[in-house]
């Protein structure tokens, strides 16, 4: 079913020709949107409470929204369905923010091997990987259509064979697509997995 996993030529080669083997790492997102949204909400909440405290402290009567919030907090017990639901939502949001903070993100960008580029950091979009594999698939004789899913670790190609033996078509696809994958210069070339079926 699947081609032999990429025969790791890259780490060995990189270690041989460069004194410090530059292991390309994942791209880490800045998390700009999440930061901006969280900052906006936090600034709004802190600003509103600060404003209201100052307002009351300078001898004014509390605004309606403040009295509504404080009476809501005082009237609802902890086992109230709304309180429990809100607490669960807060837990989920908190977990999500922690996941955002600790994971690299930018999953569509696959690191490329910087060897021979003069010290570039480069990434290839998964869409480009899929497009190249799709194109190469359609160049194999007997293949009429194909669907390609390019993942981080493996690429799955579903090809429709409209003439010829399935086994032969698959062998041809595996060798063609492995060669195509090796032209991409990815730091961790994905394994090629080919599935064939009749096109009728």
């Amino acid at each position, binding site marked *: 079913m699947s081609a032999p996993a990429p025969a790791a030529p890259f780490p060995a080669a990189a270690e041989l020709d460069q004194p410090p083997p530059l292991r390309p790492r994942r791209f880490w997102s800045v998390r700009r949107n999440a930061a901006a949204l*969280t900052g906006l909400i936090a600034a709004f909440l*802190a*600003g509103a409470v600060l404003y209201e405290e100052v307002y009351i402290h300078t001898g004014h009567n509390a605004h309606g929204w403040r009295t509504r919030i*404080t009476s809501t907090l*005082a009237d609802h017990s902890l086992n109230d369905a709304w309180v429990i639901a809100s607490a669960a939502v807060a837990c989920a949001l908190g977990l999500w923010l922690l996941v955002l903070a600790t994971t690299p993100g930018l999953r569509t960008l696959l690191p*490329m*091997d910087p060897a021979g580029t*003069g010290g570039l950091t480069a990434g290839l*979009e998964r869409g480009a990987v899929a497009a190249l594999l799709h194109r190469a698939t359609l160049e194999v004789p007997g293949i009429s259509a194909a669907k390609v899913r390019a993942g981080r670790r493996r690429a799955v190609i579903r090809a429709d064979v409209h003439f010829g033996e399935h086994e032969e078509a698959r062998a041809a696809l595996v060798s063609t697509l492995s060669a195509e994958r090796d*032209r991409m210069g990815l730091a961790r070339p994905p394994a090629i997995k080919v599935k064939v079926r009749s096109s009728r």
Partner: protein
Amino acid sequence: MSRHGPSRTTVNRTLLAVAGIVLLGGGVLALIGGLNLDARWHLGLPQGWPWTDPHQAVLTAAERTRWRGSSWWWPVVFAALAVAALLALWWLLAQLGRGRAGDLPVPSPLPEDRSRRHRSGTLVRGKALARVIGEDAGQLPGVTGARARLLGKASHPRARLDLILAPGAAPAEALRELGVGPIARARASTGLAALPVQARLRAEDGPARRAE
């Protein structure tokens, strides 16, 4: 990174983690109280735990105004709220900057100047340099579009390149050509020998055709 403060990524991720811990902690506290988990699971929570009884109110008026008589209460409340609001505002505004490097000082070509860390007094416009790099990269075989930006500070610029590959062009080869061509030329012509470059390659949109 350490030479010029923590990066925006580090700041963003640290503050996101803090916000996540606050939300998660508050949610877990409320759930422990609301679902009576202390009694059910025999957690053995310490004395003075805020929410233990499922029938207790979230925040009564008595609890809310408990410390009002103390002399430290209002200064602490105002200071904490002001710090939180300003920090959040600063964090928000820090996301709005596009992070362009602006105009870059070009190192002096004379070795004796360079050893004394003299500035040559010559600036190159960041936008102009970026446009030149982008146009140069767009001429590469197999590349149909290229856009370059110079990010970071003028003293520590870094280049970002977005390349669009022609259908079927080999990414590895395009990257090698980019490194020995446009990037090497840009580094040599500006004297920014260590200019860090990040390139992102994607494919031209469009349907793949059955090869006849």
